[in-house]
């Protein structure tokens, strides 16, 4: 393993650890009443967001889901503004109006988390269409969960993406669950066969392994970028937490819950890094750096002011208020 390779891996590790740490922190903030609403954590799924985003350019776009913190962070949203948003402050990336399910930063192509299951797919489709029509070589990524596969928007979007050879990468994060039900009790098709039906190249990889994710994503994004049309990626993964924070998860067996740790993408990557000669102390230092950043962001968010409703009215429209 080369030094360069190692540096890249460390960067991925840092990205994944950032998501982990942010979300663990959010879990505690939520439990303490400092984060209102409901939040869906992607703990256990960090390798996907990180691996996919690692091959994206700033002008590439992505549309995300209700479980979108990781996607936003991996695409590079500002940590302070992220925490401020979830903690309902004026300084939030959405000025406290969107919250967890709507984190967005249009300036870096993060088109928003989305509270409507299945909506990320056609929104990303439209973004890919814009790239194509505008003649730029940017790529759009549609993140969606396995449960979202049951929505008709997947079908409509697979078709249009293939029909128009759009620079669109479909990314299914298959964690086996749709809320409180195993997705197998809801959706019978396999995504590979679906993709095949539309003539779209498909690739599956282990969503715990950030390198596998990154490599598969690289191939898909490269193809999409070079005019070869859409690609479908499916990453198997594990949802470590409840559907949302506060979910007692009675529907999951104690056995499943107790074995989740085996699938931890951070642990897997750590042991790999150690094997390549990285020292545990180095990792620890890196983690501490992230911890400090996260804690500082939380502190700053706590000090952030409450948003002003009346001021916000001006943003319902760009050009003018309604009658």
């Amino acid at each position, binding site marked *: 393993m080369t030094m360069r390779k190692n540096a890249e891996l460390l960067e991925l590790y840092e990205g994944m650890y950032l998501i982990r740490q942010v979300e663990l922190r959010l879990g505690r903030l939520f439990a303490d009443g400092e984060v209102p609403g409901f939040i869906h954590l992607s703990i256990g799924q960090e390798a996907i967001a990180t691996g996919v985003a690692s091959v994206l350019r700033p002008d590439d776009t992505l549309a995300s889901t209700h479980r979108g913190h990781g996607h936003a962070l991996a695409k590079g949203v500002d940590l302070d503004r992220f925490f401020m948003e979830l903690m309902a402050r004026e300084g939030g990336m959405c000025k406290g*109006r969107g919250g967890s399910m*709507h984190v967005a930063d249009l300036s870096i192509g993060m088109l928003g988390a989305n509270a409507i299951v299945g909506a990320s797919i056609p929104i990303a489709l439209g973004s890919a269409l814009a790239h194509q029509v505008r003649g730029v070589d940017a790529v759009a990524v549609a993140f969606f969960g396995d449960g979202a596969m049951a929505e*008709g928007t997947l079908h409509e979007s697979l078709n249009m993406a293939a029909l128009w050879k759009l620079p669109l990468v479909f990314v299914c994060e298959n964690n086996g669950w749709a809320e*409180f039900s195993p997705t197998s009790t809801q959706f019978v098709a396999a995504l590979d066969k679906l993709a095949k039906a539309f003539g779209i190249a498909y690739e599956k990889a282990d969503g715990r392994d950030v390198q596998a994710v990154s490599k598969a994503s690289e191939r898909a994004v490269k193809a999409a970028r070079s005019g070869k049309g859409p690609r479908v990626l499916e990453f198997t993964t594990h949802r470590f937490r409840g559907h949302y924070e506060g979910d007692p998860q009675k529907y999951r067996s104690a056995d499943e819950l107790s074995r989740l740790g085996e699938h931890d993408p951070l642990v897997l990557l750590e042991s790999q890094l150690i094997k390549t000669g990285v020292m545990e102390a180095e990792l620890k230092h890196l983690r501490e750096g992230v911890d400090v950043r996260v804690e500082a962001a939380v502190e700053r968010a706590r000090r952030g002011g409450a*948003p002003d409703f009346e001021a916000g*009215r001006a943003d319902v429209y760009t050009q003018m208020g309604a009658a």
Partner: protein
Amino acid sequence: MAEVRFGKAINLALADALEQDPAVFLFGEDIATVGGPFGATRGLHERFGDRVRDTPISEAALANAAVGAALSGLKPVLEIMFMDFMTLTMDALVNQAAKARYMFGGQASVPMVVRTPHGGGISAGPQHSQCLEAWFAHVPGLKVLCPSNPADAYGLLRSAIADPDPVVFVENKALYAMKGELLEQPEIIPIGKARILRQGSDVTVVSYGAAVHIVERAASQLAEQGLEVEVLDLRSIQPWDEAAVMESLSRTHRLLIVHEAVEAFGVGAEIAARIGEVGFDELDAPILRVAAPFVPVPFAPSLEKAYQPDAEAVIAAVRKLCA
């Protein structure tokens, strides 16, 4: 007579309907095995087996399936998890369910119910908080109900399920935990009948759903100040009880309409327009509305609080009417 929560009253109504009519069939996302995200269907799958069914995340097809099922001998009750997702069911409700009877020359009825929660107050954000009942009230062929307490929830839901026509049954999520009396043999409440919750001679305030409680709070405070407010709970939005409103107006000569939905083009607009016409000679003051501003429902608790109509706004409006 017992105290039960609003959610439990819904549950009891569903259970009794399932018990008494083998044609009743419940389906929706996560309603069976885990009993629904708000617990409204808890225990029903255990008791009624496959007549209470979990579904994939496919709202558009589910709603049209309800139409097909209703035309083929079932009385389907579909749960749409948040009213914001009713956006996905509009073809089924508006083009199919609402029209089938008239458009087929009166051959058939479409006895289906869509239960769905609306309303804010839990920081669920712009895509999980909307009150869209005015849309459905605008569609000939649909009925729209919105109870404000457990007894009404039970009684109206029984009516909705027994009703031969398609009903949109709206449950304000802030009410699920609310407690209220329910008779041993709970009353069935007819569709289209308002109820006077409090008598008063100075102003008539018409409301429905959770907003009723804001109005009641305001009325108590106003009573201390010597203003007697008559509080009308519409319960049924389409059809709505024009006679009851007129009757009250003929005594108070002042009318205020209060709801949580957006004011512009909302339910209150029709009531104001209609009563402004037929009650013109009775009016000693303009008809006022207290409702949400023309802004999406924001996430931050402070914003949401500023957004939602409250007792203070009702008090101010009543004072203005009586000035």
